[in-house]
């Protein structure tokens, strides 16, 4: 059994990288391996946006990541500085920055790049999408 850390740089809509990352994660677990965390960086942080509302016949990557994290208890971590720059805020960041709204879903944790680095240190493999 091997330990993976997954980095997602592709956005929630407009790129197919996030979809491939999720398919890879599902197969990591199906093959009996584990995932330390899925780290969202660059445009990848938009995957945590709970206000994503694609039409019902379109794929909803936000909902898919949320369901995956809930089913398998895999930590989803947003790079907080990448998220803030892109208008992706959790309730805490909204309060700290004087904003009356937030959009980052609670199943995504805000964290620092340090969580990616520590995860890389512990993992057998880093796979980026």
């Amino acid at each position, binding site marked *: 059994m091997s330990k*993976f850390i997954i980095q997602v740089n592709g956005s929630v809509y407009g790129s*197919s*990288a996030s979809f491939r990352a999720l*398919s*890879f994660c599902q*197969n990591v677990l199906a*093959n009996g391996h584990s995932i330390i965390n899925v780290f969202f960086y660059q445009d990848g942080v938009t995957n945590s946006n709970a206000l994503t509302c694609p039409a019902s016949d379109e794929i909803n990557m936000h909902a898919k990541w949320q369901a995956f994290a809930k089913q398998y208890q895999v930590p989803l971590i947003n790079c907080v500085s990448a998220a803030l720059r892109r208008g992706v805020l959790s309730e805490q960041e909204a309060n700290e920055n004087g904003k009356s709204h937030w959009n980052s879903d609670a199943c995504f944790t805000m964290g620092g790049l340090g969580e990616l680095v520590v995860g890389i240190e512990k993992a057998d493999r880093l*796979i*980026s999408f």
Partner: protein
Amino acid sequence: MILHQIQTSTLCDNALNTCLRYIHPNDSILLSGDAVNCLLQTQWQQRLAAVNLLVLQDDIQARGLQKRIDDIAAKMQPQLFHIIDYSNFVEQSLKHNKVITW
């Protein structure tokens, strides 16, 4: 032994070209996403002919390219051309020492 992942179209992005500049003879390339389209071009078939090549099946089928890629694969060395699924992608990432996503 590195698995180089290319996700983007060679007509829009230099990723595959850059990867080929630094690839080691023992390495492999995985084409996923729009990168699979490069196999339709003779110049990329030639530049990739000597590389151990993995191509993600879902991305070939999604684009309706299965028949075309099968025909192209028949011209490539069979031991160097592999159409793989996600489960095999996971195992290939472990068989190689690391994965670089360009």
